[in-house]
């Protein structure tokens, strides 16, 4: 008799029953929903998005016991512009209160002593936080407080004549601050170029960067990526950029910005400087640290929606992340010259720093974020950093036969020729490379359809379907299947989306709207 028809034994039957019972028990422990509406509105998906073991209480009935007959409005001391005690208090300000029992210096010593007792052998460094990198990080993130540091050296300063309004004081060297290299007052951080790159990567990602890279500015080829001339610290001729506003450069610490573009020159100098004649980058600044900012994918993909918000949001973050990186490098004892999205064309740096390749849209396609990213932004520095080489992941080649972004382009601004070209004949494009060029005279610059439609841009990243990784792996090694993949992209309905089928307004999304997929 065929073995396929043998009857099962009692023992095996009971074993199977036990396994099935265990599975049912596990399934039964999950909440039961009768339909999607019930599922969406259940406790597990409430506005607080909390796990099942967090129980909710009645409003104004927290776990502390409140006697509402006694509980009353607080006087407001120590808060919001008051920062002083009641008239009969033995102190007059918030700072004095903190030091009522012990001076600030004594408190520091006591904390350091306690840490050393708890962690024998630990080196607290200069300020009791660890090595110089820890101090650099600490001072970088504490600078943004308005008026922080001596003489109000905080990143954001109030307009003297416009109460309640603040301007961002990023400057060529960033705002002055407590630990203020490169004046020699703090020993320089010493690390290998490779370790320095890893250190900057950790700091930059902590500040909000998505990808990082580095270039060797001492190389004459790298110098060609820097603009020939520019109006220092601005984006538009004769005007300050809308990012900083008219107070962007603090006249107390920096000279007035010339009202015209001046040549950017590389010269022997102690510091970078600009005047009406030129803008000098010291030749000792031999490194450029670069970073890209990924755009929140789920918004950026939805050109039938608020894709613009998903795209432009990173501009507010460039200056923030760049200034934090700048201050971090400065706190290590090195020069850090930063100018939001300045120095040269962004996609150009991404193409050379190993984060991506140029794509048909004219911008770079990032190996991880696809076309849904902006950058690279760049900080010029004399901190030795190991440069990162350009990559080949088959993306530039893929664009030769894809044409999807060109087909969806509303204005015709995307590179129209099938093949990349050596030049475009337009003064606004860089010549001298075989690649794709955007017709900036036509690009509407706000529709975002090219970025969103790019096959390399997809939601979910690491959580997405494995097919994307498989395709990327094949594309990186052979062009044979490129046309097939393009046709599948179209046939399977990939591309930009609308706000339909999105629970974006109802779901608790990831921080900053960006899902790293991890």
């Amino acid at each position, binding site marked *: 008799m065929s073995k*396929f028809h043998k009857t099962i034994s009692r023992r095996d039957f009971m074993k199977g029953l036990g396994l099935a019972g265990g599975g049912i028990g596990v399934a039964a422990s999950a909440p039961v929903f009768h339909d999607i509406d019930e599922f969406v509105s259940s406790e597990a998906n409430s506005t607080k998005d909390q796990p099942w073991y967090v129980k909710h209480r009645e409003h104004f009935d927290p776990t502390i016991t409140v006697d509402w007959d006694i509980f009353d409005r607080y006087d407001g001391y120590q808060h919001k512009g008051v920062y002083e005690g009641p008239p009969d208090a033995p102190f007059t300000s918030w700072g004095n209160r903190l030091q009522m029992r012990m001076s600030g210096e004594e408190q520091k010593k006591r904390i350091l002593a306690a840490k050393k007792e708890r962690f024998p052998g630990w080196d607290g460094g200069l300020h009791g936080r660890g090595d110089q990198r820890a101090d650099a990080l600490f001072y970088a993130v504490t600078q943004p407080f308005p008026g922080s540091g001596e003489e109000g050296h905080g990143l954001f300063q109030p307009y003297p004549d416009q109460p309640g309004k603040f301007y961002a004081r990023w400057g060529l060297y960033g705002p002055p601050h407590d630990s203020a290299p490169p004046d020699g007052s703090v020993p320089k951080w010493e690390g290998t170029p490779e370790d320095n790159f890893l250190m900057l990567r950790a700091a930059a990602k902590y500040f909000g960067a998505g990808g990082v890279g580095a270039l060797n500015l001492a190389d004459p080829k790298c110098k060609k990526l820097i603009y020939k001339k520019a109006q220092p610290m601005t984006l538009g001729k004769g005007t300050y950029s809308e990012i900083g506003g008219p107070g962007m450069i603090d006249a107390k610490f920096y000279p007035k910005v010339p009202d015209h573009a001046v040549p950017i020159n590389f010269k022997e100098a102690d510091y970078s400087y600009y005047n009406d004649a030129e803008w000098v980058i010291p030749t000792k600044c031999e490194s450029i640290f670069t970073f890209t900012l990924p755009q929140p994918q789920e918004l950026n993909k939805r050109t039938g929606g608020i894709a613009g918000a998903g795209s432009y949001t990173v501009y507010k973050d460039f200056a923030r992340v760049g200034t934090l990186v700048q201050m971090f490098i400065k706190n290590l004892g090195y020069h850090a010259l930063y100018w939001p999205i300045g120095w040269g064309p962004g996609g150009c740096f991404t193409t050379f720093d190993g984060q991506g390749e140029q794509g048909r849209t004219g911008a770079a396609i990032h190996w991880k974020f696809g076309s849904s990213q902006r950058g690279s932004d760049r900080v010029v520095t004399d901190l030795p950093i190991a440069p990162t080489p350009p990559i080949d992941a088959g993306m530039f080649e893929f664009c030769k036969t894809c044409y999807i972004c060109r087909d969806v382009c509303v204005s015709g601004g995307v590179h129209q020729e099938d093949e990349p070209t050596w030049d475009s004949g337009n003064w606004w494009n860089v010549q001298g490379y075989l690649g794709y060029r955007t017709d900036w005279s036509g690009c509407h610059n706000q529709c975002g359809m090219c970025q969103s439609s790019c096959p390399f841009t*997809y*939601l979910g990243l690491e*959580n997405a*379907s494995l*097919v994307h990784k498989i395709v990327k792996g094949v594309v990186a090694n052979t062009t044979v299947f490129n046309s097939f993949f393009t046709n599948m992209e179209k046939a399977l309905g990939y591309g930009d989306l609308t706000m339909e089928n999105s629970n974006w307004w109802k779901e608790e999304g990831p921080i900053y709207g960006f899902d790293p997929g991890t």
Partner: protein
Amino acid sequence: MDAIYFFLTIALAVGLTMLFTWFKKNNITLKWNEWVLGILGLLLALFAIQHTYASATYEFEYTSAWIMGVIVLLLAVVPLLFAARSVRRRVDK
């Protein structure tokens, strides 16, 4: 880890255990080509499930989720059927 992958892992572990226990009980040993076909079919089936779930859940790409999911699942059935037929022929002899 998403819940579906958790339960899928359990189901896979239980299913494979039962299958190989049954093989052992019936003195069935697999040839190398049956191993290859079986593993290929299993990987394709898992890929189909992962693609359908991830495309629908994370990418909102429902067309791709279902069309490609069904196609890959059908592709998975082919090597599994071949493997099963090969084993059955040998055992029935």
